[in-house]
Structures are given as C-alpha cells and as structure tokens.
C-alpha cells in the first residue's frame, strides 16, 4: 500500500496529542507537592508512596482489574455468540427487534440500569458484592461486543461457509475454523471496548455493590465532594504506564513469532 503522506502523519499526530493530553496533565500533577491539580509547587513522589502504603486502595485497584477482565471475557463470549445468532435470523423484523433490544442498555442512563439491577438482584437474592458487580458489568458490556462483531459477520462471504460445508466440515469446524478466525478483529475490538465500559462505570457499580466491595470509579466519584486526592492521579499514572508497557511488550513478542512464520507480510 501507499506510504503515509506528511499531512496524514501530522493529522495522526494531532489526534494522538489530543487523546493523550488529559492523561499527561493528570500524570504531571501526580508529582505536585501541593495537594491539588493546579499550582504546581515542587516535584515529589509522596503520592506514589501513598499508593503503596494504602493497602485498601490497592485491593480496590485489583478488584477493578479483575472485574474488568472477567466481565470483558464473559461478555465477549456471550456477545459473539449472540451476534452470530442474530445474523443467522432470516426474518428481518425479528432481527431488528433483537438488535434494538440489544441497544437498550446502551441508551439507558447508568442510574436507571443501576437502580433496576439493584431491584433485580435483591429480588432474586444475589448477594451484593463481587458477584453482583461482575454480573452487571457483563450485562452492560454485551451490547457493545455485539455491535463490534456484527459488521465483520455481515461482510463475511457466505460462499466461504458454503464451501466449508461442501467439503464436509462439521458445524463445529465451521465455527472454529471459518467464522471465528474471520471475525477475530471484531471480537478483540468488542473485548477492549467492554474493558472501557467496565473501567469507566460508576453509577451501576455503585448501586449493585456492597459488603465492602468497591471499584476505583466508585472511590473517585465519592471523593469529589471533599476533593479528589492526588493519590488517585498517582494510581492512574501507574495504571497507564503499566498498560502501555504491557501492550507494547505483548505486541512485539507476538509480532516476532508471527514474523518467523510470514516474513515480509507487512511493509
């Protein structure tokens, strides 16, 4: 393919600068010896020290990550199966109804979802805490996965599947050898956006949590009245750096193994 022109490089740079500006702003002030996100006084690491001394905060962080990863994983499985099912429905009215139902949780404000899930859980007797939070996060992440997988399924060539069937592939083979590899980018996209939904959610988690279980978002929002402490900036800085390192590291490790198989696939 063609190389990027300088204008397009500049365009991408601007997009990335804007996306990362607030994060660098947060990290910059995490080194502020003054207590707030303005008036930088002098450099300090005390907020980072505070993170490691506060075992409650670390447990909350771990809870947040576990809920995000597990809910993302399960929602991705449910959503992918759902999307495959939806595409197979012949009746277009039925299909559109299902899709609209799918989107209800995306359009409903968090407080409505949170309140109704709370009523639901107490009615059927789910103990509030890890389980109820995990279930809710799975619930509100499923629709985004469906929306990410769907376009890949729609563009898939039906003749591929027919060919597989003609060659005597079983239903299982068709799913694992033909469909899943093809829609894989959509599945990963769905998973990563499910992570976004889970990590950002405050209102739903607030309503359905209990018995000492908390996530980082709930903690941060409830700090707003008395002032958000810079410890939170420090912990976000750590999360950010660790995530970036993991992603870059993972990318180059997998890329090297891939290159061993298919040299010269990329420019």
């Amino acid at each position: 393919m063609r190389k990027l022109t300088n204008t397009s490089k500049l365009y991408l740079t601007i997009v990335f600068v804007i996306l990362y500006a607030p994060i660098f702003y947060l990290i910059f002030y995490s080194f502020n010896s003054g207590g707030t996100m303005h008036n930088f006084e002098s450099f300090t690491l005390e907020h980072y020290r505070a993170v490691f001394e506060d075992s409650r905060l670390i447990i909350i962080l771990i809870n947040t990550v576990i809920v995000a990863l597990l809910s993302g994983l399960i929602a991705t499985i449910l959503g992918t199966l759902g999307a495959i099912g939806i595409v197979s429905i012949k009746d277009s009215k039925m299909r559109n109804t299902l899709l609209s139902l799918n989107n209800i949780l995306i359009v409903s404000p968090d407080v409505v979802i949170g309140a109704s899930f709370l009523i639901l859980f107490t009615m059927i007797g789910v103990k509030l805490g890890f389980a109820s939070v995990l279930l809710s996060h799975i619930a509100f992440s499923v629709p985004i996965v469906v929306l990410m997988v769907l376009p890949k399924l729609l563009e898939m060539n039906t003749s591929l599947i027919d060919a597989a069937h003609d060659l005597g592939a079983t239903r299982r083979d068709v799913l694992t050898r033909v469909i899943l590899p093809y829609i894989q980018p959509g599945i990963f996209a769905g998973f990563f956006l499910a992570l976004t939904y889970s990590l950002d959610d405050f209102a739903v988690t607030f309503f359905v949590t209990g018995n000492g279980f908390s996530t980082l978002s709930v903690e941060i929002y409830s700090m707003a009245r008395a002032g958000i402490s810079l410890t939170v900036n420090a912990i976000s800085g750590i999360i950010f750096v660790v995530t970036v390192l993991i992603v870059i590291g993972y990318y180059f490790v997998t890329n090297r193994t891939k290159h061993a198989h298919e040299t010269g696939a990329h420019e």
Partner: protein
Amino acid sequence: MRNKVSTGSLFPYFIWIVLFVIAPIALIVYYSMLDLDGNFTLDNYKAFFTPVYLKMTLTSFWYAFLITFFTLLISYPTAFFLTKTKHKHLWLMLIIIPSWINLLLKTYAFIGIFGLYGPLNAVVKVFGFEPQQILFTDFSFIFVSVYIFIPFMIIPIFNALDKLNPTLIYAARDLGASSFTTFRRVVFPLTIAGVKSGIQTTFIPALSLFMITRLIAGNQVITLGTAIEQQFLVSQNWGMGSTIAVFLIIIMFISMLLTSQKSKGGRV
C-alpha cells in the same frame, strides 16, 4: 442444518436479554406508571408532553447528532491513516488505552486544560490573542463528548478498512478513477457496515449523556439523560424518571428502525 449452529449460539444471549434487558424494562415501564405515593397513574406521560421535556428531547437529539457527526468526521480519516501505518494494530491499541483512565479524572484534567490560565490558552496567547473562555461553551461540550466517543467510532471503521482488498483499489485506479472517486465508489461503500456500527455506538449513548453536561457545559446543555438522573437522585421521583427513560428507549427504537438494513437476512 447450518442454521442450527447459530440458533444454538443464541441461547445464552437470549438468557441475557430476558434477565438484563426485558426484566429491567418491565420494571421501568411499571415504575413509569406510578405516582409519588405508589398509585397507578398516567400523569407522568402527560407531564412528558410539556414544553420543558419536549424542548429537552430536541436538545438531546441535536447534540447527539452534532457529537456523532464530528466524531465521524475526525474518526474516519484517523482510521484510514492508521490502516496504513507500519504497526497498525499497536497504534490502534494506543487509541483505546486513554479510554481506560477514569472519565471523571480526565474531565477534571480538561477543566484545567481549557481554563483561562491553562495550557490551551497559553498557546492562544503565544499567537497574540486574548485568552478565550472555552469552558461552559458548546465547543467544550462537543469537544469532550467527541473525545469520549472517538475510540468507539475508530475501531469498527478500522476493522472494516483493514481487510479491504487492495486489489479493488488498484483496479479502480487502473480504470482511471480519481482518488476521490475511488474512495466514494469503492472504499466507502465497503466500509459502510463499520461506519454504521460506529454511529450506533456513538449516537445512542450520546442521547443520554449526563455527567459532562454539568462538568463541562455547566448545565447550559440539559439532556434527557441529565433529567432522568435528576428525577431519580434528586427529586426521588422514580416514576417520572422511568417515564423519560421509556421515551428515550422509544426514540432509540425509532432511530434504529430508520437506519436498519433491510434485506441482508439469513446469513451464516
């Protein structure tokens, strides 16, 4: 026979829909027909058809439209250029990562960045202009909303562009099509499914945006999402809150119907 694969895979998804979509909707509809004392009434629906709420509906629609429009405007070229970078999947991941940092924190950062004495106005001053009031304007509200939705728009478009067969483009070029014609007649139509999915993941949640209407727009923009939030949490009027939510869902259904593709049934 081949539909059996798919219908079987629908089963867990159906359970999800029944438990976490149908049941809550039933609850919301039930609550929407209750007054403050828990008696049955349709007054909430009457109350919705007053100028205040109708105006709010229009406002929500207008801003959701603007947000979606600008998100698409910025995301499509970004996705397009990203597919041509060397480590495109890495760059794509780097688009998602900022969305994993808490939104409230990022909003506070934006308050600082947009401030009269913030870095953005420092740049404005370098160019010899007076510091501008950026916070609490339509610009800042739409800017931050677009910021939030960008990854949700870029990813599906990227996925659609990524697998685009380059020979199609070469063929079009060989046949004498200009870059623009190639894009309009070949590239764009083939990515329409991705664009649609991106529009849905932006427009639908944008209808019910709430927190940043206060933080960034200073309550100068009041959307249906804000109103629901207020009814549930401040007025403690779950009936009216649920009624607005019912209308929000109806609006979503209508906009889904308007954008749905008609014929591509029975695949896989």
